[in-house]
């Protein structure tokens, strides 16, 4: 199967998954107690006003009918209207998704930049002091909750040392990279430990294999052995883990956006759940789900690049 056909095939497979996501999200958000009308009119609102608003928002229809209405608007690529802000969900999502995607991509790059050298170093210097320190330190960053680590970074690097801005998102690419460094690092340090351990393990395994002995026997420098032969083989497992972590990355942005006060989609989602802004919750979750699926597709493509033995299809 060639790449074009494979990608198309996978994209078609997305449809039922996304359909499942719409069902689950719709049911979950409608099943939790709480009434958007009360959120919009306040606890001192009169019952008639609440009933009128529910009618106006279409919340007095049976649940299955509301779901069908939602589905049919999705089929027309309409993500709906926010109940709280009374504007289209698309307009709310547009700017915010850009912030979140930038943050996720940045975090992914930092994760790689942290994990690759540390993983290699820890494996090559197995059981040495570097290995011990790397593993212990990462264990600490892994168990620190993001909201706490984020605040700590803000206090130390922004407030005390003044190295990074405390708030904002920046105007241009350089600004973005500067402003989003701490948030991205906070997310990265949550995932990196898992990847470092996995990378270390697979490098150690690869180092013990025959082709490494051959490579060493033909007089290759150790550096070339590791970077040229071992790494490519050892990357398969961490790449898989990384692909799976993208869901976690997105979850991470929700908290990190809150702590660093970034106008991202994660914060929008949290606020929308609080307000029972059904259309915003449904559509944001759907977009996040689609992104996770796309990244997994990307992961599969990277496999076949790393290891030609992996067959697509």
């Amino acid at each position: 199967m060639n790449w074009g056909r494979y990608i198309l095939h996978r994209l078609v497979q997305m449809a039922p998954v996304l359909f499942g996501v719409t069902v689950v999200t719709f049911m979950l958000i409608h099943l939790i107690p709480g009434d958007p009308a009360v959120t919009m009119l306040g606890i001192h609102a009169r019952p008639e006003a609440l009933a009128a608003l529910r009618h106006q928002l279409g919340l007095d229809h049976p649940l299955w009918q509301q779901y069908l209405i939602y589905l049919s608007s999705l089929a027309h690529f309409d993500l709906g209207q926010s109940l709280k802000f009374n504007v289209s969900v698309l307009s709310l999502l547009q700017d915010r998704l850009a912030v979140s995607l930038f943050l996720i991509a940045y975090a992914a790059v930092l994760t790689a930049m942290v994990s690759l050298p540390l993983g290699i170093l820890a494996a090559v210097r197995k059981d040495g002091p570097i290995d011990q320190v790397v593993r212990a330190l990462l264990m600490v960053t892994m168990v620190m909750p993001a909201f706490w680590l984020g605040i700590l970074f803000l206090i130390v690097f922004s407030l005390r040392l003044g190295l990074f801005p405390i708030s904002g998102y920046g105007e241009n690419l350089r600004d973005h990279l500067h402003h989003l460094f701490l948030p991205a690092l906070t997310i990265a340090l949550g995932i990196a430990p898992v990847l470092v351990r996995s990378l270390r393990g697979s490098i150690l395994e690869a180092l013990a294999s025959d082709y490494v002995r051959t490579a060493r026997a033909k007089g290759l420098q150790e550096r070339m052995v590791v970077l040229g032969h071992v790494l490519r083989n050892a990357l398969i497992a961490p790449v898989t883990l990384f692909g799976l972590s993208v869901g976690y990355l997105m979850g991470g942005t929700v908290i990190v956006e809150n702590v660093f006060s970034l106008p991202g989609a994660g914060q929008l989602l949290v606020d929308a759940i609080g307000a029972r802004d059904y259309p915003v919750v449904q559509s944001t979750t759907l977009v996040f789900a689609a992104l996770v699926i796309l990244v997994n597709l990307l992961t599969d493509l990277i496999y076949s690049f790393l290891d030609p033995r992996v067959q697509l299809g």
Partner: protein
Amino acid sequence: MATPLRQTPAQTADELPSLVRRIWDGQIDRRAFMRRAAALGIAPAVAAAVFTTYRARPAAAHASAQAESATPTPGGTLRFGRGEDSVIFDPVATFYNADIWLLQNVYEQLLRVAPNGTELQPSLATAWERSQDGLTYTFHLRPGVTFHDGSPLKASDVKFSMERAKNDPANIWTFTLVALKEVTAPDDATVVAKLSQPWAPFLADIAMFNCSVMPEAWAKADEKRVATDMNGTGPFTFVEFKKGQYVLLKKNPHYWDAGLPYLDEVRVPYVADDNTRILQLQGGDLDGIFNVPTGRVDDLAADATLQVLQLPSSFSQYVVLNHKAAPLDDVNVRLALNYATDKQTLIQVALFGKGNEATSFMPKGALYWNDTLPGFPYDLDKAKQYLAKSKVAGGFPIEFQYLAGNAEIEQVATAIKDMWSKIGVDVTIAPTELTTFNSNFTDEKFQAYCTYWTNDIIDPDELVAFAVEPKTSDAFHTGWSNKEAVDLAAKGRAELDPEKRKQMYFRIQELFNQDAVMVLLYNKPYIDVLSKKVHGFQQPPTGQWVWKETWIEH
């Protein structure tokens, strides 16, 4: 770290804070600090950053101390952070404090609340008369006022805005204007309001945000725009609202109060996280924040660049009791719970001492607040005696609902669980997420429910109506029904003699306490923390942020 360590890390840790303090106090210059830092084994880049961070502070603090008595300097941008985002700017439709407190800098009413929160002052009306029978009010409009779109303020605009506030179906505040029968505009500068019955709170009611005056032609041209745009006569014009980011206001150069406002711009960023908001203030990215957790007040007050304002508010915290849920139908049980609640301890534990014990359902210091009531001072013996008179003398289980995620109320709930256990009441604490929490209140799905109230008008009528009327609000959703109190509430709003009104409202508060309708907890101030460079900020007990006379040293 390249520099050789000449001291142990413990010594470094000991000496660094004192060094930092010396930078702060201006006792050490850069070169001397760098030398000491190097001796402590601190990398030059880090030392330089530390020096820069701390050096800026005393300079700023010094400047603010000097300028305390200085005359206002116009210009500059105030950045005022808040934890709630704006939602909708239509003054008749919103009930969010985040909107209400902001929009009154753009919109104005005929009258405005004075900073002390118990008086009214002229705003768009310079003078007014009441007819002998109390049924007709004539307002004389301030001449030369223009809206932000340049159109002149006319009596017809006031008539339109007040009728909209009274009749708009989206408006939940129509109850404040039920006595308003008709508004007429005999000429461009005069507005006449006719009432169906004498209505004492009328002037207070029309000073409320829902009676904000907007141009008729502008609002009628596109009715939807009122929710997302603002066009008033106030000191600031609305520039933009970036959802999830900020609201931006700009100086109204044609404001009728010559010379005001001082500020060029007010930027109101949305920063959801409490800690982040405080960090942004400390780091100088914000000039002010409001509603600061009481636990952080002392810490922030110690910062030389910041000022902590504790302003009188109308905030009252209660435990609403559902009288339909036995045994809470028994007044003895309700009295027992009131006496078993140690308010002083709650204030210490949850508010770090920043509050006072509530003795009435009306906030302390409000108009007609009954200062003669003793309230329910903590008395465990009395509590036990009352409980012994009830059917549940040995105690009973009760669920205590409160809003999840609020550290202050969490403390209250935990402390109350302990306090009530001393009379045998077994409390299950139930933290509840906001939307469910709100729905449970209106649906009366609770036994004990911890909530609060803030006044929107200076007259007690709004709160009293909510607290005693069985029909509209089920008496604060308690289910309490007291004919004398209901009659007095109706008489109180029709009585124009302030002294007689005072007696009526005093009596209502007395009746409320006699029946121990709710467990009264505490009143707490608005706590705003501002940079010391900010002057002239006001927040009256009704809550709105007044930036009209605010200025920044620069």
